[in-house]
């Protein structure tokens, strides 16, 4: 079984994220089992509910949401990196975290890395 884990370190308003998204979608379309995407460093900005990307720009977050729903793709956001960037994770309702993301620790990255046959970073 071809299993893939992906680490994303670029923000939703970075054009580099488009490449990551295109790659992950191509993997899913090819039938690869993408066991999870782990958002780290500035990648955690994706989980900020209040991000407003201009309507004529690439809608990175909406595209991740589409992949998450179509393919049940797990999206993990690193809690330490998120708090550092003002995305509050400590309240019970996590009201500032976009609900398509699972709040995870770095332990989740260990889990993904040991399970995946390939790990790719963007």
């Amino acid at each position: 079984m071809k299993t893939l884990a992906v680490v994303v370190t670029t923000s939703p308003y970075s054009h580099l994220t488009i490449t990551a998204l295109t790659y992950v979608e191509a993997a899913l379309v090819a039938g690869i089992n993408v066991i999870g995407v782990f958002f780290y460093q500035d990648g955690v900005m994706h989980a900020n509910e209040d991000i407003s990307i201009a309507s004529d720009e690439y809608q990175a977050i909406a595209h991740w949401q589409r992949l998450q729903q179509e393919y049940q793709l797990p999206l993990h956001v690193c809690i330490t990196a998120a708090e550092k960037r003002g995305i509050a994770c400590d309240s019970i309702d996590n009201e500032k975290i976009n609900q398509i993301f699972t709040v995870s620790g770095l332990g989740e990255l260990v889990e993904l890395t040991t399970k995946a046959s390939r790990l790719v970073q963007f």
Partner: protein
Amino acid sequence: MSTLHLVRQSAFATNDFAQCLSVLDHQDSIVLMDDGCYNLKHSLMDSLIKRVDGTININVISSHAQARAIETLTEINHIEMSDVVELTFNHKKVITWQ
């Protein structure tokens, strides 16, 4: 095959491509993507093409090069993102140089 190298930065701006080349093995492959496409015109690429004498598989994502109006070289394979996925599993591991 050994390692797949994803090269995302311009060698005219940063030292990352040079670092990639210093660990490159003769079984490895390279994919130029994003600003890595600019490296097609860098002297490091000329040296690489001469040095490897065809043993290293060098690829560029067509749309990324075309968006930047970069003419590509005949020694380089033009690929799409689906090919990058295939290369990912044709190699033992992936290193991203960004």
